[in-house]
């Protein structure tokens, strides 16, 4: 577990993260973030913005004046960043910037507007690169325990939204039979981490929780990236195979809409 903060994650946080629920700073929107990343040639090239010639560098990359000024002002939030990061990292959370080498491939390959600028998580970062079966009730409506057994039989891990009842039940079932899971949440990571059952799973290495939202910010703003994270961290071939093996009538393309979100844990 890493408790350090790379320059890249610092830049990504400065530009896109609110430091608390009550922070109303106008951070970069997904579109603005995408524009910046494209003009700089990728998130991994943003580190130079903390090297002292930020303004000149930004001008070199022909950024619109308005966006340029916004970026410069966001970079001035260093003290606030330090206070917020101290709190986040102290709770055992790790932080990955979009340009960090450990940032998962499945997300890096997406267009920058669609992939989260920062990932926060509990548990093993390595698990992000393992093959995972996507759990989504739009794709599969099987009994949760059976599905968990099927995932386990394929020697894969499962990835799904912790905040939705169906995928959460599958995740639970997987943990019950000793499987590995990746839980994704747009709610407060830290409150999940303090639930005894999940905490135990994180500590013994069978679970990783990931979110694009800073810890402690359980707000009502719509989740922007979480579905993308679930898809980005899953292995589509493995998922298709599971569905074919398990329930030939269903397929990924046959997706009934659901908005079943619930928050009890």
């Amino acid at each position, binding site marked *: *577990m890493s*408790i350090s*903060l790379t*320059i890249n994650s*610092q*830049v990504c946080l*400065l530009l896109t993260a*609110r*430091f*608390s*629920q*009550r*922070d*109303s*700073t106008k951070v970069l929107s997904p579109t603005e973030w995408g524009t910046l990343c494209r003009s700089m040639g990728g998130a991994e090239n943003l580190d130079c913005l*903390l*090297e*002292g010639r*930020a303004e000149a560098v930004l001008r070199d990359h022909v950024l619109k004046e308005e966006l340029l000024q916004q970026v410069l*002002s966001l*970079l*001035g*939030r*260093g*003290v*606030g*960043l*330090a*206070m*917020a*990061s*101290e*709190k986040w*990292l*102290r*709770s*055992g*959370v790790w932080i990955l910037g979009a340009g960090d080498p450990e940032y998962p491939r499945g997300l890096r390959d997406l267009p920058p507007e669609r992939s989260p600028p920062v990932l926060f998580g*509990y*548990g093993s970062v390595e698990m992000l690169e393992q093959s995972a079966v996507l759990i989504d009730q739009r794709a599969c409506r099987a009994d949760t325990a059976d599905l968990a057994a099927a995932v386990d039989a394929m020697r894969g891990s499962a990835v799904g939204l912790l905040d939705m009842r169906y995928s959460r039940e599958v995740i639970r079932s997987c943990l019950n039979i000793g499987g590995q899971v990746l839980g994704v949440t747009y709610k407060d990571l*830290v*409150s999940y*981490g*303090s*639930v*005894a059952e*999940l*905490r*135990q799973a*994180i*500590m013994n290495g069978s679970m990783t929780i990931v979110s694009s939202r800073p810890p402690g910010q359980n707000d009502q703003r719509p989740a922007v990236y979480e579905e993308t994270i679930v898809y980005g961290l899953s292995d589509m071939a493995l998922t298709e195979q599971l569905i074919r093996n398990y329930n030939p009538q269903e397929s990924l393309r046959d997706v009934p809409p659901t908005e079943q979100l619930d928050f009890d844990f």
Partner: protein
Amino acid sequence: MDKQFALQCLREALSNPAAEFRQGQWEAIDHVVNARGKLLVVQRTGWGKSAVYFVATRLLREQGMGPTIVVSPLLALMRNQVEAARGLSLNAVTINSTNQEQWNDIIAGILEDAYDVIFISPERLSNEFFAEQVLAPIASRLGMLVIDEAHCISDWGHDFRPDYRRLVNVLRYVPPRTPVLGTTATANDRVVNDVRSQLGDVEIQRGSLIRESLSLENIVLKDQASRMAWLADFIKTQAGTGIVYVLTKRTAESVAEWLKQNGIKAEPYYSGVQLPNYLETNACREYLEKKLLTNEVDVLVATVALGMGYDKPDLSFVVHFQCPGSIVGYYQQVGRAGRGIDKAIGVLMSGSEDSEIHEFFRRTAFPDQQTVKRLLNQLSRGDGYSTRQLEGYFNMTQSKLQGIMKFLSVENPSPVTKHQTKWKRTPVAYQLDEERIERLTGQRELEWQEIQEYISTTDCLMTFLRTALDDPGSEPCGRCSNCRGKPVVDMKVDKSLVMAAQRYLRHSEMELVLAKQTPKGAFVQYEIPYSIPRNQRARTGRILSRWGDAGWGGLVKDGVYGGRFADELIEAAAELYEQRWKKEVTPQWLTCIPSLRSGELVPEFASQLAARLGLRFANVIHQVKEHAPQREQVNRFYRCQNLDGVFEVDEDIPGGPVLLVDDLVNSGWTLTVASVLLRRHGSGEVLPFALASMGIG
């Protein structure tokens, strides 16, 4: 920003059109403003660090940066600084626990960019509630970070302080190109190097630490009475005001009271100090700080709590009644004298109790592995516990428990987190860093040895201090007692005053007030209810001394170890009983607490005291079962449970009020239980009496 504009700001700030920068001031401003760098400034107090951060703030604000946040440990100092900022047309504000009703307005003001400088204390910074309510909404706005007394962020620069540990972590995550200014007047190379390793790319600026007005002297007087006598005489001959440093709160109280009795305007000062008209201890401290600043008192008798940042330029003496734990600590405290005057005196006295007290401080500074493990195991079993709930599982005082939780909560990453009132376990595998603790404890021991060398050195005292602090220049000062070859202060000790001090120490008995409520479920056999019925409660009693203290406590200690109390203690107890204890009822007989362990020690003393007082002695309380020593039970519940069913009282006992005697008292539960049993068996009112109380206070 150029130097000329900065100079103009400085001149405005000082209202002096001819003012120039002192050596290093402009370089410091240039580094934080123009290079947006991190800088540690080691300069003696009075060098002008606040001018640096005020001018820097002014320039950064011109560049559109947010307000500066200054983390400073002293309340009164903050008030002064808020005033000083006005001179530079800077709007400064302090946010602390005493102005909670204004927090929302202040936050709104900061969000509207109405403030330029914000002062907070390190305690606030690390307070979860404050961080959530005040810092979180404004964090994005903050421009520069200033750390006053920055040596505290080094492991070597302080006795372990959890609040600063949190600050270290904050500093570690400050990104490049964010201005950070640390200032200190006390840092040796080890501290500086440690700060550098914590902060990464930090620049260091170091000036000379010599204080030219200060004359140093060491006095070794083993017994407290002689030191108290010398101190009273010394202060009476001083024209100016000063600080007397002591090691414990209890000594602060006792020495201040002694000085008052000798006609000196003295007040005690320590963390948690209470005054009749103030509810809040921070307000008391601020009031006392101000009283010294305005010369309404001659002297504050203070623990290390009066330290950092206290700035009174005309302070003319600092006397250490007991020896501090390190040279760094000593220099910092003695360095408060003579900042703005030509002559000041620093006297270090040391006594026989010092090393025992420091040994205690070192031993109790960190929690032990076993306790931490058990605590975390308990937390793992559920989804959150309050401190109260945890107390029920552990044999530990509430303050000790809180101390350990605080220690754990500032670890990084931390195994615990606090949500409102509940402690929760985080998914962080945790092992107490015993190596670090051993290293720090070892370091404390070395520091203690170093200050012992200072006490016995025959070289220049100022040079010794400067060398220990790695100050580059170190020519002899010419003013200390070693340089002069004769004392700086009058060394004479008035014999009659020593006798008076001895008498004072021996009359420093304490009231003994027993509990009125018991922990629920602790007395299953005795069926003592939560609220003890009025007619079974004891009256207010007396404790003759504190275990091992300079009054009678030393004799009590000898008696316990030697198996017999000296006759003088009988006389002392009788004198207290007859002459100074205004009793609400008059006892007609006397009894005592039995002990299977100490045998006849207490009954023998009690019967002799009864004979001396002319009271009937009746040994009516009996211990009917073994129990673990009461002092090993350190929270209410366990202490009470440990006593349940242990004593029995004879059926037929004398009537009328009774004097109930024991040797040592800690939490007083033994006396509380015995009083209930005596009343239930038909005795009259119970007046408890003990020879000594335990614990360092």
